[in-house]
């Protein structure tokens, strides 16, 4: 159990990127009526943005 909790917290930045930043980005795109490039839907674009930010934070150990 302890190992599971540790793993979840270890991958916190990735989880936050996909779990929160992705839908947040998608809803910001929709609220601003932006059209994502390459025919991506807002949620697909959000997943790209949130996933990339989360991955970067996961590797660097920091968001900023």
């Amino acid at each position, binding site marked *: 159990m302890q190992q599971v909790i540790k793993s979840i*917290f270890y991958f916190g930045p990735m989880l936050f990127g996909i779990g929160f930043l992705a839908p947040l980005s998608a*809803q910001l795109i929709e609220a601003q009526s932006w059209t994502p490039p390459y025919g991506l839907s807002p949620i697909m674009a959000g997943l790209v943005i949130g996933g990339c930010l989360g991955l970067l934070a996961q590797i660097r150990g920091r968001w900023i």
Partner: protein
Amino acid sequence: MSPSQDLSKLSNAELMRMEREVAARHIDKFPYFAVVWAFANLAIWIAVWPLVFLNIIPLWLGFVISTINVTLSYLPSHEAQHDIIAKPGTKLRWLNQLVGHLSTIPLVLPYRIAKFTHMDHHKFANDPDLDPDYSTHASGPVQALWKAIENRQPRAKGGFNAYGELLLRKERPDILLDGIVYEVIFYGTLFSLAWSGFALEAALLWWLPRHLGVTYIQYYLSWAPHNPGLAKGRYRDTRSFRSILGNVGSLGMQYHVIHHLHPRIPLYRTPKAYWEMKPILEARGCDVDEL
């Protein structure tokens, strides 16, 4: 005793007797304001959610109110941490614990973690190895704000991460578990709201207010009253200071030296106790020049 009186010729024993006399006049006063503050602040923060979701108030206003709520949520719990509302074994002890547990919910800081780490902060203030709040030390105000942000990075060693390290070192996984439960509920709520189409609301009513609140709290409750934080010891590890936002804007921290000397004096009485005690503090060599 007049505020400008010179007591430097008095013995340590005489100074201690006078200090205790002043402190005794302010200890054991029931902090009605802190109790009302705790429940009112939490009630307003909870009420903001349906008010925003039902379009009764705009999201930007909810964000402003929530940020103020989160920022104000720590101090009532702090009164409880020091048993100021009611000591163990007394009739109103339940109220002390209720305030302690409930008030920091918006801040996502469990009461037991706050209390345990705060007691160590008092014991070891400014000790680089033992003070759990040492990571807030910084050379100036801008650096202090930046440090507060840096301390919240995933692999940071300071801030709340330092609290986790302390609890592991002291073999208190039971208290650490509170933190894990709080984090799971917090992020679970954010993720659920976000994937249900309410990401902006989650971001502006809890996630961002929490970041802003924690930064403000660490600046005024931790950095400002201990800066430069180079000395240790009862009369040297904190100070009084003049805030550009006044005592209210600094969350009552201008007179923090009183709190470290006599932690059971309620927050609202620290200004009065400070002015009564100032000649003693000067005789003791405290850093009280700014105020």
